[in-house]
């Protein structure tokens, strides 16, 4: 029997649970409801229908409460009951936090898996972000950075592949200022002494350069002492960086002191510079005044390129207009010059990341490839995506188990927005926590990463307000996205249903499909990364193990000074006297570099002399034998034949092909006024890095002095050999301490960028796989839990353990296979493009794909297998009692 009074009491209690209505409000509303009901009763309606209709006419509960709540806040301000309200809200907040904490604590493994993936992903992202920022901000600290340019050339001499070079002619700088109104100033750089003496003490510098006073106009390198206007105006001046000055003079005042270089030139110290920051492509420890140099005629010529020139354009000047007249300008300096040279301005900020195509680029510290910065960014995005997917995935799976909590909360009056807020809040809190831990992790890993990348990054970069805001914002967004899905799903459930049929949510078909989709996405990314790593490693090994056409093992390279050149023969005699040293030779340039191009004239098939500028390698007479360079025609240089030194030439196959010679041996070559025959043809060998095809090359024996001596030592006796070499060195060379590098180290350094890239990709591939497996592990265990009863019944009916394992594993294996099908073509396309950058490259085979697919499958099965085996081995009786 319907009891009106009881119904009204229940109704009132229900409304009372809302925070917006106080008892006065309720009195008023109840009076209203009663009036309404009375009117309806008078119309003859039975009490229950009258009650229901009156209730319906009042409008729905949520609207009333919302309307009252808005009002409530306004009233609060009037009545200063804010503290009451706050304490209530705090109590609710505390309740949310307690529930959140219990959730986390009760499912330690899942919480760990869930947060672990996120932390690892975030830490990796933070580090990559730091690196990207470091690269993008390279050279940005100069005030005029946007008006600064480097003067580059494209050289197209006959007999060579056209090349971009970072070199320019000595007279270009001043002429640019004079002839172009848009050019405000220029500064030139040339290599300077790397060893300074104070009295008898020698100090080795990493880099010393000659430059001119305008240097201080162009760049922001700050002088701690001295006057920038005059520091470099006088010949024989030197400006030292603070740390080298400290090394040389300790606490004493270096200004006005005299230092000497190995050629006994003296310099007065006229200034102290702040140390050059690590994110500058220009690096030096000493600046010598350019006027100190004794310029020889060839250095002044309009076709010798040996300085690096920087130009500062006037405010508002545009690079394109400034460079418009360069072609005519070149011809006005020397007839026909523009035929061989194309001068252009390279924006200063592009030098670091945009110079991979530029050779003879010796003053470009830590030159990097913009492409790899982009690749790193994409990697960071993907790793974050995987971690985020993981987080959403496990959160969703976990929250399904909280359906009962939701049901109860709803039954006692929680509104949907409150529930959504609770779940989203929990996931936002977790992701913020993960960010904090990830920051700590990144801080710990920064040291090794700096070492790996050769950078000096600091975590403080991340604490710039804008960046910090972006990080926090990103993390909030991540938490929001990850929490939103489970929150919306859960808050939409019908409380009655969920309380009665607990667990109904865990087996929703649409939801499990979404989770599967997320797993597939994760594995797609992970597999693509693994394939990328395998291919990159394969290509790098190919580069390093490829037969370059000469012997490069067990060779020690030692730079030669003038003094060492003078006593070269005695030095070599002392070196080869050691039982651990096999042989020694010397050359102007080092293997692995782009050998300098020098102009010469060569006889064509028609007997005419044709101008061309191939790479040219001046060597000691035994060089070809030393490096075991194979000759395909003719002979090598011989000590027996007097004219071989200085007149005879050995050229490579590319040279012969370029000249179109049918018979190379005997053709005449005129070089710097002396003419001699080609005596042999060397098989093409890769003197430059394997990014490049073998360019035409001429080799001649010259007595100009050499840059470097190459010493071949006995295998396995490096330590003894180096000790002997150092002893011999000390015997003859006093002006410079002994320093060396192994040639294969030098070759490894040629591929340092790729090496770094492949290491990072490898690391990230590992992480991606790890995080994806964490996700899989969590999902598999949930799947096993939700199918406990099914497994129990199957076993009770006689299913074997292996069939249970099979049943549970195949589903996940299918996900990995789908991921493989998606990842393979993607990886193939990207890797093909990457490999196209190399002149010498591997063919993309099936192997890396198969290997990556199998690896992912095995790892996935191992992950799932653990749970499957446990489920299969469990006692079916226990399983049947479950729930």
């Amino acid at each position, binding site marked *: 029997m319907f009891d009106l009074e009881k119904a009204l009491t229940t109704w009132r209690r229900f409304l009372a649970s809302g925070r917006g209505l106080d008892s006065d*409000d309720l*009195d*008023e509303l109840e*009076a*209203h409801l009663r009036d309404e009901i009375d009117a309806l009763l008078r119309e003859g309606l039975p009490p229950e229908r009258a009650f229901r209709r009156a209730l319906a006419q009042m*409008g729905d509960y949520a609207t*009333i409460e919302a309307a009252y709540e*808005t*009002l409530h806040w*306004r009233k609060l301000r009037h009545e200063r009951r804010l503290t009451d309200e706050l304490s209530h809200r705090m109590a609710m907040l505390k309740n949310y936090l307690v529930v959140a904490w219990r959730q986390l604590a009760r499912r330690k493994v899942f919480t760990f898996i869930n947060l672990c993936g996120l932390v690892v992903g975030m830490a990796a992202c933070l580090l990559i972000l730091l690196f990207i920022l470091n690269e993008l901000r390279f050279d940005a600290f100069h005030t005029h950075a946007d008006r600064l340019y480097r003067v580059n050339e494209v050289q197209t001499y006959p007999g060579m592949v056209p090349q971009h070079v970072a070199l320019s002619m000595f007279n270009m700088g001043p002429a640019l200022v004079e002839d172009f109104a848009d050019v405000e100033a220029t500064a030139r750089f040339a290599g300077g002494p790397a060893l300074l003496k104070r009295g008898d003490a020698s100090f080795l510098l990493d880099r010393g350069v000659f430059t001119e006073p305008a240097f201080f106009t162009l760049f922001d390198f700050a002088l701690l002492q001295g006057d920038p206007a005059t520091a470099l105006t006088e010949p024989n001046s030197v400006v030292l960086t603070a740390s080298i000055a400290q090394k040389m003079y300790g606490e004493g005042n270096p200004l006005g002191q005299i230092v000497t270089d190995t050629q006994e030139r003296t310099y007065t110290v006229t200034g102290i510079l702040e140390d050059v920051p690590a994110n500058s492509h220009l690096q030096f420890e000493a600046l010598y005044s350019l006027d100190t140099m004794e310029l020889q005629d060839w250095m002044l010529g309009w076709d010798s390129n040996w300085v690096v020139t920087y130009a500062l354009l006037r405010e508002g000047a545009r690079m394109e207009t400034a460079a418009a007249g360069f072609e005519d300008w070149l011809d006005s300096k020397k007839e026909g010059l523009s035929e061989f040279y194309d001068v252009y301005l390279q924006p200063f900020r592009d030098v670091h990341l945009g110079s991979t195509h530029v050779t003879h680029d010796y003053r470009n510290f830590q030159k990097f490839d913009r492409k790899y910065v982009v690749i790193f960014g994409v990697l960071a995005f993907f790793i974050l995506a995987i971690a985020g997917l993981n987080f959403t995935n496990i959160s969703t799976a976990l929250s399904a188990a909280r359906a009962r909590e939701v049901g109860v909360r709803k039954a006692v009056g929680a509104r949907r927005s409150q529930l959504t807020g609770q779940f989203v809040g929990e996931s936002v809190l977790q992701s913020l926590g993960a960010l904090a831990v990830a920051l700590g992790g990144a801080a710990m890993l920064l040291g090794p990463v700096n070492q790996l990348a050769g950078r000096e990054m600091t975590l403080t970069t991340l604490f710039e307000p804008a960046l910090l805001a972006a990080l926090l914002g990103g993390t909030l967004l991540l938490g929001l996205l990850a929490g939103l899905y489970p929150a919306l799903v859960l808050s939409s459930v019908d409380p009655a249903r969920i309380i009665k049929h607990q667990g109904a949510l865990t087996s929703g078909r649409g939801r499990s499909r979404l989770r599967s989709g997320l797993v597939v996405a994760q594995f797609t990314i992970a597999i693509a990364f693994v394939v990328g790593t395998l291919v990159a490693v394969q290509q790098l090994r190919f580069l390093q193990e490829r037969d370059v056409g000469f012997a490069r093992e067990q060779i020690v390279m030692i730079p030669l000074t003038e003094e060492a050149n003078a006593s070269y023969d005695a030095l070599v005699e002392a070196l080869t006297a050691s039982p651990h040293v096999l042989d020694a030779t010397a050359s102007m340039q080092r293997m692995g570099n782009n050998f300098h191009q020098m102009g010469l004239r060569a006889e064509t098939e028609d007997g005419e002399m044709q101008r061309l500028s191939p790479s040219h390698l001046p060597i000691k007479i035994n060089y070809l034998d030393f490096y075991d360079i194979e000759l395909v025609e003719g002979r090598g240089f011989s000590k027996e034949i007097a004219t071989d030194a200085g007149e005879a030439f050995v050229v490579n196959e590319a040279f012969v092909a370029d000249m179109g010679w049918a018979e190379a041996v005997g053709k005449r070559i005129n070089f710097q006024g002396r003419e001699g025959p080609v005596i042999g043809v060397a098989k093409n060998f890769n003197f430059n890095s394997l990014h490049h095809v073998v360019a035409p090359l001429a080799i001649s024996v010259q007595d100009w002095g050499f840059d470097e001596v190459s010493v071949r030592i006995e295998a396995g006796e490096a330590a003894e050999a180096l000790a002997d070499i150092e002893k011999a060195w000390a015997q003859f060379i006093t002006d410079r301490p002994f320093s060396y590098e192994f040639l294969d180290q030098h070759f490894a350094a040629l591929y340092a960028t790729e090496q770094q890239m492949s290491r990072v990709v490898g690391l990230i591939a590992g992480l991606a796989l790890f995080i994806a497996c964490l996700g899989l592990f969590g999902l598999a265990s949930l799947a096993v839990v939700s199918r406990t009863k099914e497994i129990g019944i199957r076993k009770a009916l006689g299913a074997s353990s292996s069939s249970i394992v099979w049943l549970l594993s195949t589903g996940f294996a299918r996900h990995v296979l789908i991921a493989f099908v998606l990842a393979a073509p993607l990886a193939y396309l990207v890797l093909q493009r990457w490999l196209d950058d190399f002149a010498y490259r591997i063919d993309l085979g099936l192997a890396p794909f198969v290997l990556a697919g199998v690896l992912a499958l095995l790892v996935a099965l191992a992950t799932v297998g653990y749970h499957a085996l446990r489920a299969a081995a469990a006692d079916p009786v226990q399983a049947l009692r479950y729930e």
Partner: protein
Amino acid sequence: MIPRALASATLKPIVLSLLAEGESYGYEIIQRILDLSDGQMQWTTGTLYPFLHSLENEGLVEAYWQAVENAPRRKYYRLTLSGRHALLQEKQQWINVNRILMKLWGPSPELAWT
């Protein structure tokens, strides 16, 4: 039925005018509007009560309780002095609106295509 937007725009002048005739309570106000509009304008409790409360907060009306037999007490509202001022302002504005419409439609408008 008068659309919700228009109904809530007229909330203030109508409620103030009704209370100017004499004190009243929520249920009665809703019923009177229903009568006056021939059932065309029906305000819900969720609209009217919060509105009455906000008028109270603004000091345009004041409320007092009156005991009722066998039921919760009833809350009555009456206009204050500033409520009367507010009504004058409302009236002025509505007269302006009315004047515009009269000019457009004539003194006794009819529903027809023009």
